[in-house]
């Protein structure tokens, strides 16, 4: 489904007229964000299509400044009456919002970096071929091991999206972005006990995805946990696989925003310039990484995207800013003013988080551990890792490490510590860095000493 009638909201000329209309209606300044996407989502089950979803989506978000206060409104109706209503609501919202000296729009900078996230090869494969990719993924998992009971979900999805931004301060830009992914959720069974495993493959064009490898990975992840049981509690080294490390980094990422710091919600407040992690840890926010799903020439309020060091060789370098939090702190925006969709105001969020450091072969890391656990899944990271207090306690699945060897699969076990002790306890980084798409994180396996493993 591609054709549609009406104006293209990712055309700057169309947005210019909305900015003019908002100012004519009384806005001091105005900024319009236009978003459009054409997307597909294919779900396969038992070798057949279970669901095929095709979508066209577009909408506008209008931010106005009026007597020092912000007002925001959105609409999916981009015709004349829809836009009139949009302007009217944004101004009405500004009228009941308190003035804020830091509420500002981005000023035009020195141009945007040449970040190219558009890939015309997204449409190289037909719908039938994309269905085939999902089928191949499911088949690979089922064929890999007889203990794979079923693949509950196999999904192929892609999107061709466009974004445009225009403001009365002269910000003006647009870009297109393409991405696609495969995902599956595998159930393996042994003696009536079920274990699960997931895998993703992410790219900009479908022919670049590896269905076989993705299916096998999820099957392997589920099967290696079969026979899992609890273990006695102990203190030791935990090796977080990339999927698990990524979910911890997402918690760190939100604690490293200026928004969290300024609102007293970050354990990193006042630690700038001090060692917060082991010297082998370097963490960046990179909004320009060619492979990053969150890469773009500019953020969702018009600031150029860039690389921002957060932790270098263990020392906290700084925080992530949007225009508002930067003004409040007397800094400049780092290009991290992002919105979930045209329905939301920008807020400070990481783009692509990248964990770097000296790499050790993953097998060598395990071989060097006397008593520990390879953590393959964690549940409850969102609620169990507290970015304010630093408390960390999550449920995990994994495999016990004894004398350098992987031994007993584990379940109903908890892993706990506190976030700063964990960062300082990083003893090795693997050579297996990969992109994990929940958030957008490039991360290897991470070995952390001094973790409490809670069992029976």
């Amino acid at each position: 489904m591609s054709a549609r009638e009406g104006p293209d909201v990712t055309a700057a000329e169309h947005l210019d007229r909305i900015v003019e209309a908002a100012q004519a209606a009384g806005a001091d300044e105005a900024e319009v964000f236009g978003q459009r996407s054409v997307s597909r989502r294919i779900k396969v089950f038992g070798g057949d299509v279970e669901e095929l979803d095709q979508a066209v989506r577009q909408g506008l978000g209008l931010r106005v400044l009026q007597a020092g206060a912000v007002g925001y409104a959105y609409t999916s109706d981009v015709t004349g009456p829809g836009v009139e209503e949009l302007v009217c609501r944004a101004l009405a919202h500004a009228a009941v919002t308190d003035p804020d000296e830091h509420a500002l729009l981005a000023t035009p900078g020195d141009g945007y970096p040449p970040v190219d996230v558009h890939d015309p090869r997204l449409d190289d494969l037909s719908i039938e071929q994309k269905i085939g990719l999902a089928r191949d993924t499911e088949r690979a998992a089922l064929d890999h091991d007889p203990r794979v009971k079923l693949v509950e979900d196999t999904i192929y999805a892609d999107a061709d999206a466009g974004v445009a931004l225009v403001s009365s301060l002269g910000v003006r830009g647009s870009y297109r972005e393409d991405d696609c992914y495969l995902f599956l959720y595998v159930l393996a069974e042994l003696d009536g006990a079920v274990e699960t495993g997931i895998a993703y493959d992410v790219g900009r064009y479908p022919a670049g995805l590896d269905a076989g490898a993705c299916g096998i990975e999820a099957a392997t992840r589920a099967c290696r946990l079969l026979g899992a049981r609890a273990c006695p509690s102990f203190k030791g080294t935990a090796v977080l696989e990339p999927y698990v490390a990524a979910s911890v980094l997402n918690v760190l990422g939100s604690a490293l925003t200026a928004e969290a710091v300024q609102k007293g919600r970050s354990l990193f407040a006042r630690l700038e310039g001090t060692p917060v992690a082991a010297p082998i840890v370097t963490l960046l926010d990179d909004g320009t990484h060619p492979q990053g799903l969150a890469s773009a020439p500019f953020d969702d309020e018009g600031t150029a995207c860039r690389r921002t060091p957060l932790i270098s060789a263990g020392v906290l370098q700084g925080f992530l800013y949007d225009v508002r939090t930067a003004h409040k702190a007397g800094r400049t925006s780092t290009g991290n003013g992002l919105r979930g969709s045209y329905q939301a105001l920008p807020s400070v969020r990481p783009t692509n988080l990248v964990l770097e450091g000296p790499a050790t072969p993953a097998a060598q890391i395990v071989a060097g551990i006397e008593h520990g656990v390879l953590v393959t899944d964690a549940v409850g990271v969102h609620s169990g890792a507290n970015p304010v207090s630093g408390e960390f306690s999550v449920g995990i699945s994994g495999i016990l490490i004894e004398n350098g060897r992987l031994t007993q699969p584990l379940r109903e076990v908890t892993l706990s510590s506190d976030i700063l002790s964990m960062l300082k306890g990083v003893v090795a980084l693997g050579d297996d860095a990969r992109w994990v798409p929940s958030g957008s994180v490039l991360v290897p396996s991470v070995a952390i000493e001094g973790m409490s493993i809670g069992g029976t």
Partner: protein
Amino acid sequence: MSGQDGRERPAADVAGTGAEWHGGIDAGALHSALGRALTRGGDFAEIYVEERDTLGMRREDRQVDQVTGGRESGVGVRLCDGERTYYAHSDELSEAGLFRAADTVAAACGRGAPGSVVDLGGVRSEPGRHPVAVPPEGVAIERKRALLEAGDEAARAAGGEVVQVTVSYGEGRQRILIVNSEGDAVRDDRTRVRLMTNVVAHRGDVIQTGYESLGGSIGFELLDESAAERVARAAAQKALAMLAASPAPAGSMPVVLANGFGGVLFHEACGHGLEADAIVKGASIYAGKLGEMVAAPIVDAYDDGSLPNGWGSAAFDDEGVTTARTKVIDGGRLCGYLYDRRHAGRLGASPSGNGRRQSFRHVPIPRMTTTYIDSGDATPDEIIAATPRGFYARSLAGGQVEPASGAFVFGVSEGYLIEGGRITRPLRGATLIGSGIDILNRIDMIAADMDIKSGMCGKDGQAVPVGTGQPTLRIAEMTIGGTA
């Protein structure tokens, strides 16, 4: 609260008069779009037309800093062909957009003889099911702002250690029209309001947070300044109580789950496993267990999408099926699953009114509405007094579960030690760990103090409003992950 400042809505909908909201698309176009969807095969076609207006307001740092809102509208066309579902949606709410979506699903199917469309009957609607006395869109925005201020002040007045207060107000009106090739036509007009408060308290090196909310499928009559103050005080008291908390010990002990928020545990650890999509795929521990004991004999449990004015309620589900109260556990015995149309068909059951979707952008799937364990006859005090040593979970932070195994982990945002039948000291950093059926079987005391809380539930990338509830109850033994 009086209804004086509420702008009156037109008189209750009368089916078929043509005067009600129809998203600008007439009945003839809907009928022909169903036909176009079925031109190249398929056995069921459905159109979902939606318009949604929202307003959200936030006060933080003593300032009303965000007021946002707008309108989203569009249409989704679903075509079912045996086990296959084709879906197309567009936010172009017009006949042209509707026909394009219908042609898209027809082209995607493209492998059979044209299906037939039953003539659409009168449009059913039941405006009296969840009455709205004061439509929130008619209430002056300054009055909503006053709620935020009242909540902020009440939370700060609760104690000098309160350092941050966030009060949020949200309202939404969702109008939908659902028609399908079997001749059903349903209109629903849903209004929801909700007030939430988050409090941060600080003492020395310790920072704690507290949260409380109040919401319903109801008008602005739910909320006034005193309601805002109650919600704010409850949130503040949680944060303040936990300032003195010591790290929770890890281990196994009896757990008393308080009423209200404790229901999240049943929702996650059991409810998701009762949703018929997991049953059909054999991906739930409750599959094949209808009629079997899955809980202690004192446990009755329900899902109720018809609960009057409930946050998770509606007159119809998002497939046009009338919502209902469904008993899922009867005296410990599993007696029902939660169905949408498609999975009910697969399992030879009737749809239970649990086919829900986030918006026109989503395919309906089986979802909970308001799920709860029913009241017993003990009192909360009796339960605590009967527990020599245990853990009292007053408020849960949220958690995760794997429906396939029923294994879950929950963070406890407000927890206490029980010693000698008395609640003694607050504990922080505790998590509750276990699996659904194990825990249900270990429930050994249930009180009569039922309470239901409002929340949002995510599944398959779709968020829908749900209610979760329970009375105070005790689980004879449960694993606690702690940091002590």
